[in-house]
């Protein structure tokens, strides 16, 4: 019997205890609109704080220009085409460098994830190189390949390829052993097991690896352009520093963030499209 119930059989049902922590409990659910609202609020809050700090004259415009002046500067750079030209150059470098790295890393990662011999031959070496700071290669790459696009590709490649190989190896190792056993009992050759079972099975993981490493590629292209370039987003930032155009620098940094966000969302959209079979209810 419920405590305090007098057994009168009245319609008064015990009200469920009030649930607190509707928003802040671990794993508490928030509607999609709520999620977006919270995220947008944080962005707005930061911009407001920035506007307040510059508007009140707490920091000088040389160090931190107001959001308005950054915006106006970006609009004028967009209008005269500079922004799009810079972005186009960097985007081209990223795409080429990233594609070269990925096209090489996928087969190598698959092979060292599947064969112990190749793992022993390649993994320790890759691990070793991976810990060398990419930035330290910049002077060397300039010596080797000048300051043109080739050097940018090389830096992006060094920065992403070795990481990709190890991550893809891990993606491949997560393929259930019984999937491979199944392929064996069906009499498939090793090559067929790799192509028809291992690669498709690891593909969602590999896609995620590509998405994550694409984010790093953005960093490396700007690093390369900051040091030695005659075009690109990183180049514009260096030039702007020379002329104390802090508004351009900040505008470009924010723009890079937006570009990263867009490429990430594109990869995620691709994921939803490619791996629909993993969704419980979708077809």
């Amino acid at each position: 019997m419920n405590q305090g119930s007098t057994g009168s059989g009245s319609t008064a049902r015990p009200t469920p205890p009030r649930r607190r922590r509707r928003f802040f409990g671990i794993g508490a659910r928030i509607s999609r609109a709520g999620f977006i609202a919270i995220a947008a609020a944080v962005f707005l809050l930061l911009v407001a704080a920035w506007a307040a700090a510059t508007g009140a004259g707490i920091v000088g415009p040389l160090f931190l220009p107001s959001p308005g002046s950054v915006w106006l500067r970006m609009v004028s750079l967009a209008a005269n085409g500079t922004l799009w030209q810079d972005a186009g150059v960097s985007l081209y470098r990223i795409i080429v460098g990233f594609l070269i790295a990925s096209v090489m890393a996928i087969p190598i990662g698959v092979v060292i994830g599947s064969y112990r011999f190749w793992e022993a031959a390649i993994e320790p070496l890759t691990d070793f190189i991976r810990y060398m700071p990419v930035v330290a290669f910049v002077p060397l790459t300039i010596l080797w390949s000048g300051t043109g696009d080739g050097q940018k590709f090389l830096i992006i490649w060094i920065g992403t390829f070795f990481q990709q190989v190890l991550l893809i190896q891990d993606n491949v190792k997560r393929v259930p052993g019984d999937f491979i056993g199944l392929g064996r009992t069906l009499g498939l050759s090793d090559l067929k097991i790799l192509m028809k079972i291992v690669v498709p099975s690891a593909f969602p993981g590999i896609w995620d690896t590509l998405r994550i490493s694409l984010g790093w590629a953005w960093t490396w292209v700007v690093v390369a352009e900051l040091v030695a370039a005659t075009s690109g987003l990183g180049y514009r930032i260096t030039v702007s520093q020379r002329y104390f155009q802090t508004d351009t620098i900040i505008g470009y940094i924010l723009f890079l963030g937006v570009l990263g966000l867009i490429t990430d969302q594109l990869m995620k959209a691709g994921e939803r499209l490619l791996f629909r079979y993993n969704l419980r209810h979708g077809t």
Partner: protein
Amino acid sequence: MTPKLELRGLGKTFGEGARQVEALHDIDLTLAENEFVSLVGTSGCGKSTLLSIVAGLQDFDHGELLVDGAPVTGPGLDRGVVFQSYTLLPWLTARQNVEFALKAAGMKRAQCREVAAEHLELVKLGKFGDAYPSQLSGGMQQRVAIARALSYRPKMLLMDEPFGALDALTRHQMQELLTRIWEEHRLTVLFVTHDVEEAVYMSDRIVVMSIAPGRIKTAYHVGLARPRHQDMFSTREFIDLQREVIRTIREETMKAQAA
């Protein structure tokens, strides 16, 4: 008549040097054509290792392994395997999963579709051919896996605790379904399980293994009439045999714990 499957003095050792562990010792086991044999034993007795060796997925160190009198050199289409874990390929639909095996077996594309549909019907999943594994329950996935293993007509079916991950109710339904299929179509089956009731219900013969090293301790002939029904669970004969098998396994478990 040559037995379907024959193991003679089969032995298997894991590890090297001082860390060597003898997993299987001097295993003699014979399965007649169309015989349903269950392998039971306390966990760690090597029953799954033995099945995996018969499937050709693991090597062995001593003895002989013969299918239809010919030595086995590796995995092959003559032995269909159903694993305990769900092994449907998630990017393929139920029908495509069956067709995947048929194509591997060299069947022509046009025929694949028909045979796949027929086998999905056999496990009562005819309507689910276009469903992806993520849309199927665990029991349904195992039914597709059984359909897949049967579809290319192997000489025998090897099953490694295929219902071990399912809830009790689903497991009973699966036992019933597999028994119906088996009684109708007959096939040599080697079935590993830790569920004695399941073994008694389904098998012609139950082989009990002992532990450390894994050996065949004893075997029981199951005299229950066929076709079998789950009503038999409560008959004297069923319960007596079930108790006897459990007692034998428990002896082994005690011995292992005392050691």
